């Protein structure tokens, strides 16, 4: 696996902070997406059945990631679902980063799923995306 994430301890007293990193921007996107999905439910307890293909683009990868994570939070409420996985591909065409994703989940069911936090929003607080050597890293704080 070319990405990782870890939840941050003291960065958000009442909320959830995480740091995700990857060997490429795309891998970092995967790590951040997984961290968000796991903030809401244990994905191994979520079956499939609900799918949404989403495409977004932006010249700024930080803005694109922020929009994408916010979109995941949106679907949690709009469709009443939690998520098992999100397959994603990130390409660059000229100056523009293009994200193509397939978000997979299932309607919320507290009897069969291990549910975690109801994320209210992705915040800009301490939000930072940076490259260090061959590693891309992002820090995200979620309001819960």
């Amino acid at each position, binding site marked *: 696996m070319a990405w990782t994430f870890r*939840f*941050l*301890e*003291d*960065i*958000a*007293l*009442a*909320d*959830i902070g995480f740091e995700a990193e990857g060997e490429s921007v795309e891998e970092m996107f995967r790590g951040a997406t997984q961290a968000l999905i796991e903030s*809401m*439910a244990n994905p191994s307890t979520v079956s499939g059945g609900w799918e949404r293909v989403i495409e977004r683009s932006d010249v700024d990868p930080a803005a694109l990631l922020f929009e994408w994570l*916010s979109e995941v*939070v*949106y679907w*949690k*409420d*709009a469709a*009443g*679902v*939690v998520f098992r996985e999100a397959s994603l591909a990130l390409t660059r065409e000229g100056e523009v980063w293009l994200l193509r994703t397939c978000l997979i989940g299932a*309607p*919320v069911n*507290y009897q069969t799923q*291990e*549910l*975690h*936090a*109801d*994320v*209210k*929003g*992705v*915040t*800009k*607080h*301490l*939000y930072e995306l940076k490259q260090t050597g061959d590693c891309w890293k992002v820090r995200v*704080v979620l*309001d*819960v």
Partner: protein
Amino acid sequence: MICGSSSRNPSNSHPSRLSRKSRKSRPLDMNLNTDMTVNRVTDEIWEIPISEKPGMLVPARIYATRDILQAMDSGVFDQVTNVACLPGICRYALCMPDGHWGYGFPIGGVAAFDVERGVISPGGVGYDINCGMRLIRTDLTLVDVQPHLEKLMTELFRKVPAGVGASGFVRLSREEFCRVMTHGARWCVEQGYGWHRDLARMEEGGCIEGADPSIVTDHAIQRGINQLGTLGSGNHYLEVQVVSNERIFDQATAAALGITGHDQIVVMVHCGSRGFGHQVASDYLKVFEKAMRRYGITVKDQQLACAPFRSPEGQDYFSAMNCAANTAFANRQVITHQIREAFATVFGQPAEALGMELVYDVAHNIAKVERYAEGELVVHRKGATRAFGPGSLELPEAFRQTGQPVICGGSMETGSYLLVGTDRAVRDTFGSTMHGSGRTMSRAQAKRTVRGAELQQQMKQRGILVKAVSMSGLAEEAGLAYKDISKVVESVDRAGIAKKVLELRPIGNIKG
């Protein structure tokens, strides 16, 4: 051009990077989580002068006892002084004793801005617009309820959906949801989800004017349209509580509010505008980031994004925020309807016969236009409660003698308080006071310290029955993660910005 401060953002420092040390200039031997000078005004009021940060337009004042102040995280000091830099701020940037690190504004933050020269900021309201508290009395006592507690909590858990992604039983068309946005709790009463007299016992009668659904995004509507009557998760809850005689501090005021003690049962609800309000906040933070460039505003933290109150963007946010605030009043009203139904089912009597009257409903995440000595101000309360004193003309007749009820929720293990507002709060803190106990431990640390299932069992042994959607969520809300609410209440009572009336002890709790 409206200017905040242009200096680089010290608040973006990681809280733990700041050393814990005292300064020689500090008048007292105190050990605070800040390098700033913090001067004692009284034993419960502490002031950071404008010299402590470039761009501060007014001093910052923190309401806290010495012990509470010393325990406050560094984010409070950074953030309250960042707020003091915002254009048009009046008198002081304030933080209540339950204050802790937030986004932009600290939780517990209060700031008032001149409506003509000042700004409005979603960061001063929070993501959960009109997150608030509601208290419902009953004629039942502990003796009546204890034998049926398991059945009652099961019925409440069934009737009031909680947790991530939960949807409610009310199915609305888009048009009808727009009526919820404009009519708030009034819509609920029209639909039979409450009694007309409930409305007199809510801040603003459960309906704030000036809500315009046309400036709310489709995303916000889609996120919220199915969530009326749901609790959410995090620190939101529904709690069955008991009031014993020895925990009533002001019998006359308690009686005037319908609380007589003798192990009386009451129900407390803590929740807000759910996904709808969260999306309104997210949408307008983006709008304001762009608007700030247009209006030449710079802030010390992106989450302090703001716009002049009188600008089109400022007015649009205010109107959208009022849509969310009304939806939150409606949400708590539908939940109240479900609570009344659950009690009626379990105890075999109509809710009216059980005396299930509303004590009060009050917001603690909101911005409102109010009149003070300086004139019309847009008062931001983020994790702070309005606390108007006796005689305030804004209050309904029922509270002119007592002052406005202030409902402060503690942790699910300890207890909560009912207070009333004071004239001093109106004079000193823009009619504002505390809202809860305030966290002291991160969610991750709480989960490492205690397991949800064990906590549930321990609480049952102590006479508190907990129904939770998420065991990890339950662990995150353990009592050890919060300040001692009694000390927080004591500090506002001594400061005179609220007067304590009684303490409430939990016997049953529903968490998301």
